[in-house]
């Protein structure tokens, strides 16, 4: 044990735990949040290119409508709905609802199912209404 307040041992030592559904979903929430920042940057550039004029918009539009561009959009969409439902679950926890192993386990599956449903629903809206 060191007395240096800047250099204390950290707990818990996450690396010695066996990965569980809850811990994996928890770190995925953060990863999705960080991924979403890049999606947000892309979105900001999209609107900026629109504000500059048609030529720059067309160029940027061709970029995000290419195969790679669409894969990036799809990735952002998945991250968005995952972070959304995982975040909603956090809001419930914040007001004290949904604790207890059984409920945590159930809500983990609910978050995953809701995420997949909303990804599919959003894609359907894009294909049939857009």
């Amino acid at each position, binding site marked *: 044990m060191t007395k240096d307040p*800047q250099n204390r041992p950290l707990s818990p030592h996450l690396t010695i735990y066996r990965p569980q559904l809850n811990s994996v979903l928890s770190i995925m929430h*953060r990863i999705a*949040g*960080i991924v*979403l*920042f890049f999606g*947000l*940057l892309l*979105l*900001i550039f*999209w*609107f*900026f290119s*629109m*504000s*500059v004029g*048609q030529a720059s*918009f*067309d160029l940027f*539009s061709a970029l*995000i*409508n290419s195969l790679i561009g669409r894969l990036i*959009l799809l990735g952002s*969409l998945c991250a*968005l709905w995952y972070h*959304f439902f995982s*975040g*909603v679950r*956090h*809001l419930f926890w*914040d007001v004290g609802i949904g604790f207890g192993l059984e409920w945590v386990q159930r809500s983990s599956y609910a978050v995953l199912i809701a995420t997949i449903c909303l990804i599919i629903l*959003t*894609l359907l*809206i*894009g294909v049939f*209404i*857009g």
Partner: protein
Amino acid sequence: MMFRSLRGLRGQSHKGVESTNHWISQRFTSILLIPLSILFVVNFVTVFDKPFTEVLKTFQHPVNNLVALLFILISLWHYRQGIEVVIEDYVHDLGIRKLTLRLIGIMCWFLVIVVIFSFVSIYRMEI
């Protein structure tokens, strides 16, 4: 006194009370983003592959314009709140932590200016 003892944990820039406020305002932006992200995503997936004039017309509509603007600005704010917590968790060197937090702050304000400039231009653009 308990709050005072927490001073310094957040890159020596925040006191305990500010950490509580940070937590509360993070919940505030989360709740705002629930309706905004639904509205914006539905709007976006229906127009993102359309030609310029159609996209422009969509986002010149005051409601779409406001929803998109609020979604982006509040997302940026929410991102900053979230990444601050992540950095406080993983960056242990207080000097580097403080510098990173400041750089992220500057980047976010720069993006806010870009976004507001873009949306005002889009709104005033003549087709």
